[in-house]
C-alpha cells in the first residue's frame, strides 16, 4: 500500500483510461476493416473453417459417448466430489494404457510366434543353436507335470506360474525362436521383442507426460499467491448452480476445509517467521533425527525383503518339499513380506511427521513421497535379491554361462514368474481387504452401538493410499512385461475388476472424507507418482537387458551375449552408409554438440518463462496500486471503467 503524490496518480489513472479507450477504438476499426475488405476467397475460407469446427465439435461429442464408464464416473463426481472422481479417471487411464500395451506386445511378439509354431499360413520358424557357447548352458528341461498329478497341482501352478503355465506363451521361455518365416518374408523375432519393449516404455512415457502437462499448467497457475484469495473464497465461493443436497454438503465441507487450511498456513507462516535461533536449531536437529529413523525403517524393510526372497528361492527349488500349502506359502513369501512392509511403513511415517513441524500441505506431500519411495524401492530390492541369486556363481562352468545355469536355466522366466506372483497377490489382497475388512466393518458400525466401534467408524476413501496401490501394481506390470509378454492383459483385467470393487466399496462402506481434495492438484500428483514408477521401472529393465547375460537355453536372445546385443548385430547388417550414419550419431562428435544445443534451448525457455513471470508480477503490482490508492478509486473513475468494460463485453463477446 504505497501512497504516491496526487499528480502522478492522476496521470496514471487517466493514462489507464486513455489506453482502454484507445484499445477499444483500435479493435473496432480492425474488425470493421476486416469485414469490408474480405474478398470472396477469404469469406469462403472463414465459413468453411467455421463449419469444420462445428463438425469437429459434433464428432468430439459423439466420441465422448464411447468413453468407457462415462456415466459411472459422472455419478461418482456428483456424489463424492472431484478428488475421488479423478482417482477413478486415473484408473480408467491405466486400463486403457495396459490394453494398448497388450495389443502391442501381442501383435508384435506373441502372434508371429504362435503362427510360426503351429505352421498357419504356410509359416515356419528357425531355431538356430547358439555358437561358441558351452553345451551345458543350453540344456533346458522345463519340469512340466508328467503323468498323473493331483488336481491341486494345477491350482498351485496357476497361482505361482510354475508347471504347465511356465511353458505357455505367458512367459519368456516360450519365445525360443530366432527367425520366423511367413512364405518368403522373414521376421526377426529377437529384434522385434526388444523393439516392442522399448516401444511400450516410450509409449507409456509420452502418454503420461502429455496428460501431466495439462495438470502442470493448472498447478502452476494455482500455486501463485493470489492477492485476494480470502475475498474470492468468501464472496465467490458458493456455487449457486448446486441443486443436489449431497453436493451442497460436499461444497460446505470443502469450503470449510479450504478456509481452515489457508488460515492455518498463514498462522504457521507467522510462527515460522517468529522462530528464534534456538528454536530453529532444535527443529532442524529433530528433523535430522527423524530422517535417520525413517532411513533405519527403510533399511529394515529392505533387509527383510532380501532375506525373504533368498529364503524363498532356496527352499522352493528344493523339490523334496512337496507339501502343497507350504510350497505355495514359500512361493508367496516375498509378496507377503512386501505387502506387510507396504502397510506398516506408511503408518510409521504418518506418525513421525507430526514431530517435524511442517506446514500441513508439505506434511502431506512429504509423507506421500516417502510412501511412494518405500513401495517402489521394495520391488527394486526384490529384483536385486533375485539377481544376486541368479548371478551367484561358484563353479567355473557357471562362470562360463554367466548365470546360475543349474537352478535357473531360463532365468528370465523365473523373474517373470516372480512378477506374475506379485501381481496376483496384489489383486488378491485388494479383494480380500474389501471383502473381509471393509464390509464387515460397515456391518459392525451399522449394527453395533458400543463406543469403541462407533469411535472407529466407517473408513474414509483415502485417495493417496489407493493411488499408491495401483501405481505399485502398474510398476510391476511395466517391469514384468519384458519377462512375460502377456502380463499387460492380466493387468487390464485386474484393473477392470478393481474399478468395480472400489466403486462398490466407496458407495457402500465409506464415509465422506473430512479433508476434501482438489481435482487439479490430484491429477497432477497421480501422474507424477506414475512417472516416478515408470522411471524406476527403467532401471531394472536396463540392467536386465544390457548387463546380465541372457539365458542360453531359452528365449529369443540365445545367440547373443546380452539381450541388447541384438541391436548392434542388426546394425552390422545394414548398408555401409547407414552404418556410418548410425555410428556417427552414437559417437561423441555428435553427442557433445547435441547436448550443448539442448542446453541452449533449455536456457532460452527458462529465460522466457522468467520474463513472463516478471510481466505478471508487474501487472499485479499495477492492479494493487490502482486498487488501494484512494484517489484512483473515485466513484467517477470506477464507474467509467466499469462502463467501458461493459461496452467491451457487449461488443466483443
Amino acid at each position, binding site marked *: 500500500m504505497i501512497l504516491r503524490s496526487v499528480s502522478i496518480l492522476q496521470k496514471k489513472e487517466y493514462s489507464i483510461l486513455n489506453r482502454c479507450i484507445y484499445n477499444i477504438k483500435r479493435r473496432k476499426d480492425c474488425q470493421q476493416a476486416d469485414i469490408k475488405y474480405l474478398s470472396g476467397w477469404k469469406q469462403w475460407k472463414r465459413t468453411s473453417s467455421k463449419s469444420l469446427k462445428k463438425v469437429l465439435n459434433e464428432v468430439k461429442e459423439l466420441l465422448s459417448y464411447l468413453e468407457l464408464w462415462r456415466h459411472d464416473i459422472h455419478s461418482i463426481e456428483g456424489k463424492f466430489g472431484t478428488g475421488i472422481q479423478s482417482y477413478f479417471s486415473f484408473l480408467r487411464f491405466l486400463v486403457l494404457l495396459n490394453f494398448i500395451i497388450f495389443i502391442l506386445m501381442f501383435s508384435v511378439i506373441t502372434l508371429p510366434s504362435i503362427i510360426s509354431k503351429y505352421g498357419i499360413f504356410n509359416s515356419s520358424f528357425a531355431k538356430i543353436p547358439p555358437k561358441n557357447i558351452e553345451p551345458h548352458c543350453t540344456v533346458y528341461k522345463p519340469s512340466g507335470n508328467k503323468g498323473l498329478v493331483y488336481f491341486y497341482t494345477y491350482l498351485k501352478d496357476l497361482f505361482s506360474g510354475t508347471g504347465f503355465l511356465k511353458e505357455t506363451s505367458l512367459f519368456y521361455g516360450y519365445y525360443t525362436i530366432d527367425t520366423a518365416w511367413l512364405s518368403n518374408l522373414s521376421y526377426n523375432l529377437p529384434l522385434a521383442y526388444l523393439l516392442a519393449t522399448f516401444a511400450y516404455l516410450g509409449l507409456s512415457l509420452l502418454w503420461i507426460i502429455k496428460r501431466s502437462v495439462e495438470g502442470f499448467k493448472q498447478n502452476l497457475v494455482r500455486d501463485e499467491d493470489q492477492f485476494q484469495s480470502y475475498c474470492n473464497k468468501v464472496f465467490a465461493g458458493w456455487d449457486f448452480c448446486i441443486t443436489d443436497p449431497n453436493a451442497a454438503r460436499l461444497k460446505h465441507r470443502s469450503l470449510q476445509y479450504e478456509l481452515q487450511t489457508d488460515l492455518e498456513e498463514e498462522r504457521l507462516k507467522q510462527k515460522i517467521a517468529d522462530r528464534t535461533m534456538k528454536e530453529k536449531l532444535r527443529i532442524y536437529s529433530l528433523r535430522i533425527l527423524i530422517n535417520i529413523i525413517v532411513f533405519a525403517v527403510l533399511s529394515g524393510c529392505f533387509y527383510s525383503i532380501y532375506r525373504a526372497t533368498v529364503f524363498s528361492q532356496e527352499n522352493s527349488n528344493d523339490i523334496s518339499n512337496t507339501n502343497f500349502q507350504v510350497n505355495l506359502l514359500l512361493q508367496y513369501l516375498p509378496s507377503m513380506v512386501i505387502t506387510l512392509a507396504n502397510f506398516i511403513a506408511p503408518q510409521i511415517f504418518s506418525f513421525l511427521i507430526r514431530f517435524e513441524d511442517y506446514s500441513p500441505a508439505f506434511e502431506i506431500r512429504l509423507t506421500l513421497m516417502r510412501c511412494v519411495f518405500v513401495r517402489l524401492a521394495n520391488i527394486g530390492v526384490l529384483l536385486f535379491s533375485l539377481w544376486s541369486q541368479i548371478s551367484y556363481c561358484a563353479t567355473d562352468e557357471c562362470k562360463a554361462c554367466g548365470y546360475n545355469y543349474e537352478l535357473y536355466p531360463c532365468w528370465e522366466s523365473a523373474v517373470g514368474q516372480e512378477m506374475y506372483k506379485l501381481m496376483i497377490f496384489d489383486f488378491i489382497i485388494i479383494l480380500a481387504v474389501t471383502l473381509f475388512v471393509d464390509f464387515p466393518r460397515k456391518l459392525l458400525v451399522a449394527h453395533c452401538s458400543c463406543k469403541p466401534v462407533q469411535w472407529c467408524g466407517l473408513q474414509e476413501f483415502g485417495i493417496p493410499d489407493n493411488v499408491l496401490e495401483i501405481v505399485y501394481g502398474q510398476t510391476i506390470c511395466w517391469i514384468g512385461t519384458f519377462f512375460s509378454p502377456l502380463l499387460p492383459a492380466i493387468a487390464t483385467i485386474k484393473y477392470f475388476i478393481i474399478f468395480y470393487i472400489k466403486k462398490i466399496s466407496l458407495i457402500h462402506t465409506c464415509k465422506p472424507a473430512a479433508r476434501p481434495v482438489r481435482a487439479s492438484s490430484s491429477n497432477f500428483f497421480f501422474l507424477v507418482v506414475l512417472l516416478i514408477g515408470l522411471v524406476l521401472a527403467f532401471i531394472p529393465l536396463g540392467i536386465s537387458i544390457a548387463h546380465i547375460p541372457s539365458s542360453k537355453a531359452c528365449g529369443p536372445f540365445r545367440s547373443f551375449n546380452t539381450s541388447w546385443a541384438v541391436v548392434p548385430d542388426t546394425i552390422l547388417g545394414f548398408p555401409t552408409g547407414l552404418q556410418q550414419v548410425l555410428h556417427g550419431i552414437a559417437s561423441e562428435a555428435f553427442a557433445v554438440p547435441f547436448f550443448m544445443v539442448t542446453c541452449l534451448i533449455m536456457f532460452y525457455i527458462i529465460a522466457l518463462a522468467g520474463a513472463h513471470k516478471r510481466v505478471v508480477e508487474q501487472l499485479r503490482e499495477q492492479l494493487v496500486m490502482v486498487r488501494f490508492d484512494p484517489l484512483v478509486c473515485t466513484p467517477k473513475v470506477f464507474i467509467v471503467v466499469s462502463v467501458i468494460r461493459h461496452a467491451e*463485453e457487449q461488443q466483443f463477446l
Partner: protein
Amino acid sequence: GDPPGPALRTAGRELWETGRPPRCSAGQSCLHCPCPEGCLLRPSRHRASLVLASSSAYKRFSELLPKEERENACSARVPKSQILTLPELRANPFQHRICWVFSTSDDRDDSMSFEDFLDMLSVFSDSATSDIKSYYAFRIFDFDDDGTLDRKDLEKLVNCLTGQGEESRLSNTEMEQLIRNILEESDIDKDGTINLAEFQHIVSRSPDFASSFKIVL
C-alpha cells in the same frame, strides 16, 4: 430503516446504465430514500421479453401454484415455503436472503409474484452483467440491510458458507483472523465495513464470481 421498496430494485438498473445514482420521479436519490412512489422502470420489464421467450420460467412458476390459481399465474403470489421447494434454491444456504431481497410483498412475508421471480432469474442469468450481479450479491450478503457489510454480516456469511451444524463452524479465533484478512483485502477507506463500491470493486477482480453467481433453470 424501512425495508427495501420497489425503488431500490430499479436503482440497480439505472446505476449500470447511466453510472449515476438514479433519481426517481419524486426527485430523490433512489439509493437511499424510501421512495413513496413506485418508479416506472423495473429491471424485469427490460428482461421480460427475453425471459418469457423461453416459457420455461413461466412453466416453473405456475407449477409452484396450486391447480386452481394456475390460470392467472401472472398476478398470483407464491408463498415462501413453496419457493423454497425449487431444487435451485433448496440446497442454497442463502435461500432466505434471496427470497427477502427479491420479494415485493407488502406484508413482508417473502412471497414472490411472477415479476419477482423474473427479477430473480434475470439477475442470476448469464446475460446479467457482473455489475448488476455484484449489486444483488451485496444485497443478499447484507444480512441486517443497513447498506454495508460489517463484521456481523461477514460472520453470518461465513457461517452460511461452511454449513449448518456446530462442527462445521469456524472457531472464534479463526473467524476473527478471517474477517481481519477480508477487511484488509477489501476495505479501502478503513472504516471497518465494506460498502457497495468496495464490494463491487473486489468482486470485479474475482475470476470465479460470474460463473458461481448463476442459476440455470
